[in-house]
């Protein structure tokens, strides 16, 4: 009896598992992973009826009402009243004053989406799945921030830009229209600052708590009571301190850039408002990045 022939050498890299199938889907470079997370964030926000849709509708209504005031100003009756000395100069005031209402719609979005986002992922154990894949904490942070910024821009930028364009369209002459084009960069500055601050800050609070409801409470506490208390102290002692309130800061920048004089309001100077919004946004991004990096370390190898 002859000896059995030696087994044929196995081809390297072949997996002998009947259930295995090589991944045949799209392979993305790591630099695009944040876009996937951003799109998932936007899809989640848009999925149900109550997360973001009503507040975007509210922002659209604010735009329509403010535009209506602008249009009424061009009506001959109002013009006549204005010529008689009546204080009805709403044409140029409607846009900056509308920011106060956009801020309320934006706060609603932070309550239904922003302040719950990262806490929800912690609560559901989603980090294990995120970071078991080649997703870096940086991709997650950039994706969530970009997604939230898109939502905030829908509230802060779309309406004011439409109002600015409408104001240009209401101009009586081409010279006035050219002058009014200067509104666009001012809108971009105010809306950009507001978008960045209102996207980053609730996410930071969300990263601080593993429970969604606690994160929501903490954000509401910070936004409604915490900064209000400091702003009140600022109004009593040193006006720039009031800029810690993001809503007051956005209004202060808008009023300054659009040259609106509200005598009864104690507003911080524009420099303090801009500095406060940028610093709070930067601190918020740092908190999110730090917390997510730590959560990623703890999640890989854990169970959901």
């Amino acid at each position, binding site marked *: 009896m002859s000896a059995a022939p030696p087994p044929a050498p196995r081809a390297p890299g072949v997996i002998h598992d009947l259930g295995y199938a090589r991944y045949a889907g799209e392979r993305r470079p790591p630099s695009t992973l944040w876009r996937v997370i951003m799109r998932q964030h936007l899809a989640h926000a848009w999925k149900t009826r*109550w997360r973001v849709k009503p507040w975007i509708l509210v922002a659209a209504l604010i735009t329509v009402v403010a535009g209506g005031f602008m249009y009424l100003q061009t009506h001959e009756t109002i013009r006549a009243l204005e010529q008689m000395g009546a204080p009805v100069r709403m044409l140029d005031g409607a846009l900056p004053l509308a920011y106060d209402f956009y801020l*309320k719609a934006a706060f609603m979005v932070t*309550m239904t989406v922003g302040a719950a986002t990262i806490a929800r992922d912690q609560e559901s154990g989603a980090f294990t799945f995120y970071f078991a894949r080649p997703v870096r904490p940086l991709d997650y942070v950039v994706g969530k921030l970009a997604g939230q910024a898109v939502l905030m821009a829908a509230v802060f930028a779309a309406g004011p830009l439409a109002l600015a364009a409408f104001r240009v369209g209401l101009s009586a002459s081409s010279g006035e229209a050219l002058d009014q084009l200067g509104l666009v960069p001012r809108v971009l500055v105010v809306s950009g600052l507001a978008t960045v601050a209102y996207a980053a800050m609730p996410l930071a609070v969300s990263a601080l708590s593993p429970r969604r409801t606690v994160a*929501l*409470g903490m954000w*509401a506490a910070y936004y409604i*009571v915490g900064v*209000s*208390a400091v702003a009140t102290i600022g109004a009593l*002692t040193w006006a720039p301190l009031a800029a810690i309130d993001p809503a007051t800061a956005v209004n202060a920048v808008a009023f300054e850039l659009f040259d609106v004089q509200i005598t009864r309001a104690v507003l911080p100077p524009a420099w303090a408002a801009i500095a406060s919004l940028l610093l709070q946004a930067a601190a918020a991004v740092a908190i999110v990045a730090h917390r997510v990096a730590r959560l990623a370390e703890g999640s890989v190898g854990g169970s959901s």
Partner: protein
Amino acid sequence: MSGPGGPGLPVGARGPGGLSGLAATRALAALALVRAARGKALWIALALALLPVIVVSVRVGLDHDRADVWRAAFELSLLTLPIVPAILIGPSLADELEDRTSAYLWSRALPRWSIVVGKLVGLAPVAAVCLTVGLATSWLVAGGPGAVAVADAWRGLGALAAAGVAASAVVAAIATLVPRHAVATAVVWLLFVDAPVGALPIALQHGSIGFGARAVAGFGPDAVTGALTLVAVTALAVALAVRRIARME
């Protein structure tokens, strides 16, 4: 007749071999209290209720009129009203409904109304105590009996406690209506609907917790009307929550 105890379980009836409504309420209240004591929300609520003390300290340092300081302390404490009950009662009830753990409670022989009432009996006093601790501290910082009369202070504290209970009932009603967004909706309702309506000089303000609290505290037109407002809002909200939970699948 089927009452809010659930389908086929009349009000006040004892389930087959189960707890009476009162016993179930007591058990659920104790459980809610223990959970609150172990969670972070209680400490966040307490810290939040104490925030107005900072503003009061600054105003006292600036030697503002003590009556104005007391009024400001009360108004700032009212600002915490949308949040303190929302983070204490909202998750307790909404998580139960959203996570479907309420199904386990439905399977027990206890009346459904005891779930809402039990949570409220356990947590509404906690919310009221958190709020009043903040205001009482502000009163002491403002100068105590030497600055604001004890009777006025008691009135303010009582008004805030009653407002805390009323707000807790509203939060419970909202949690049964929209369990997924209970905290957000409750905060938005109390902040953007109840508070502005209460500050407006219109008849509708009589349905506002803020109006009721101010009136009872002596900052409004009529304390009796304010007290009636708070009682009516609380009763209406509890009735709504009980009715809603009784009809849930």
